[in-house]
């Protein structure tokens, strides 16, 4: 039979041309250190030094202060300062928990996946330090069910760490006790939403909770709980080891450090790129990733996962620093840093339909506006895409969208109209073309014969 080389291991984009001092592997060190998954190699590279420092040199409250000083902000989407979040945990006795959010399911986002499969100890160390900081003795890693291999890698790493006295009782002889449980989900985007994650971890359907109370007060099993994204927690060991000043050296005024930009879509070299926060889109897409594929032109991009608005392919956008404030100033969001690139052959109606279908499929069904509204949106977009759009459909889309946003327990429903609204602002004529001509204005669908039944 044919000799086909399947890629069951992820192939990473090549390192950029050398001589660029802003580009180095910190969280992604596994790309240059073979075998980093193993404890011995991880320790040889300075692994668990951060934990040692935390336990030996600092009181828990001081660890929180260090993380505050570093300026580390959450990588899951909202960018909330991690140290501040930890400081909300009441200083009371009894059980407290740390939950690592490794549900990573937002289209365009794939940093946690690489970090977990290749450098599990970095995450485990981050969780242990976080547990110490808030006075918890039990951390959970809620990993999406589809990451079966990631879960195996993590479990193996926890076992290794336990055997080395890094997890369990009396860690490093300091009297600190801490367990880590790897918990596999079973396929549901909604469980990335933190309160749904807690429900799921309690063995229930992943329905979001009404807040308040917030998880810091009443989270898992109604106890104080910190929930952080995997990438957020992976930063923590480095902050402890090298100090908050070192960390705050990277990045911009309000978004410190470096992060994994997940680049996908129509680019030459997609993949995770670890860059200082505030690097421009231009540098990421053109200097590092080789530009738009097939020599085509950029049409638009989504800067922070499928829940964030489209941005146009202008010079102004390309020169925008990718941090929370920079992208907000252009009318979109940093979100999960999932940068999705669309070339000039993309029919925007088809792309928007695909984006919105995700939210329809993933609506948990608890709140009516989200459950029904996302179905309507898909129905309307579907008929537009297939040449059966009606006059007034664009207004109807906006109207249905505005009746979902802000009317449900969580933000899933709010995300569904986002691609529609932003695409209509930028490419309204393509939607109208679909209504009037019954086919795409650009791309392969533009050559389709006009569909019978297209409105006039």
């Amino acid at each position: 039979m044919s000799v086909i080389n399947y890629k069951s291991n992820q192939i990473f984009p090549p390192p950029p041309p050398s001589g660029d001092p802003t580009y180095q592997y910190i969280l992604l060190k596994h790309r240059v250190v073979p075998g980093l998954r193993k404890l011995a190699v991880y320790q040889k590279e300075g692994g668990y030094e951060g934990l040692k420092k935390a336990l030996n040199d600092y009181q828990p409250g001081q660890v929180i202060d260090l993380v505050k000083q570093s300026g580390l902000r959450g990588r899951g989407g909202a960018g909330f300062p991690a140290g501040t979040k930890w400081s909300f945990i009441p200083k009371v006795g009894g059980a407290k928990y740390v939950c690592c959010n490794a549900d990573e399911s937002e289209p365009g986002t794939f940093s946690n996946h690489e970090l977990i499969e290749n450098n599990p100890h970095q995450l485990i160390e981050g969780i242990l330090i976080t547990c110490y900081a808030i006075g918890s003795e039990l951390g959970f890693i809620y990993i999406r069910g589809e990451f079966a291999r990631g879960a195996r890698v993590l479990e193996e790493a926890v076992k290794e760490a336990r055997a080395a006295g890094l997890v369990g009782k009396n860690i490093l002889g300091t009297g600190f006790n801490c367990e880590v449980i790897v918990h596999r989900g079973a396929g549901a985007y909604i469980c990335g939403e933190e309160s749904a994650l807690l429900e799921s971890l309690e063995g229930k359907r992943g329905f979001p909770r009404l807040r308040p109370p917030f998880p810091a007060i009443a989270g898992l099993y109604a106890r104080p709980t910190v929930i952080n994204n995997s990438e957020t927690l992976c930063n923590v060991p480095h902050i402890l080891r090298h100090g908050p000043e070192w960390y705050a050296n990277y990045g911009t005024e309000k978004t410190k450090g470096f992060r994994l930009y997940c680049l996908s879509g129509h680019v030459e070299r997609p993949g995770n790129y670890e860059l200082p926060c505030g690097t421009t889109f231009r540098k990421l897409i053109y200097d590092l990733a080789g530009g738009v594929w097939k020599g085509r032109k950029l049409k638009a991009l989504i800067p922070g996962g499928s829940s964030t608005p489209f941005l146009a392919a202008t010079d102004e956008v390309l020169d925008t620093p990718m941090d929370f404030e920079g992208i907000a100033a252009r009318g979109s969001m940093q979100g999960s840093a999932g940068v999705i690139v669309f070339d000039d052959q993309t029919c925007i109606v088809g792309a928007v339909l695909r984006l919105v279908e995700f939210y329809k499929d993933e609506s948990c069904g608890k709140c009516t506006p989200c459950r029904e509204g996302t179905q309507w949106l898909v129905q309307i977009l579907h008929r537009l895409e297939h040449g059966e759009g009606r006059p007034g459909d664009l207004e109807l889309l906006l109207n249905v969208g505005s009746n979902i946003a802000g009317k449900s327990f969580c933000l899933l429903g709010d995300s569904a109209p986002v691609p529609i609204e932003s695409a209509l602002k930028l490419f309204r004529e393509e939607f109208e073309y679909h209504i009037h001509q019954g086919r795409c204005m650009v791309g392969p669908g533009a050559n389709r014969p006009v569909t019978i039944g297209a409105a006039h």
Partner: protein
Amino acid sequence: MVEESNLKLTGESRQKIVALKQLYPSPRSAVLPALHVVQEQFGYVPVPPMAEVADILEILHGEVEQVATFYRMYHQQPVGKFVVKVCDSISCYLRGSDELLAQGQQKLGVKCGGTTPDGQITLDKIECLAACGNAPCIQVNDEFIYDVTPAQFDAVLDELKRAKKNPYFVP
């Protein structure tokens, strides 16, 4: 074929579930991982073993069934020996996932969600698998294959037609 009403957890599965129960501060938290154990044994989540899970965890049968029907990874019905899942979310869509899906349907002669008559392969689509940098990507049961070209997809399906165990397992 064993009647579904006679399906029982093996001793090994029961042991795993008991261990899970003891792992968590609250036994109910073990429901999701316990259902993974059930599915590992049967290939789907039949009702009688779910009742066993509920009894082991000392919760209501309905509390287990509620969970089993909410999460998409639990199959309610038997599926093929290999479930081929093509990610069709935006980043894979932009790099040809719909074409892969069409190719698979044609080659196997099944619709999306369908199983070949010999029970060997189920073809389905799936939401974003968080491998957008290696799009299009697919899963064969729980294992990933990245950057799938049409020629590779063809070869994967050929291989699965004959395979006894998952050739794409990476420890």
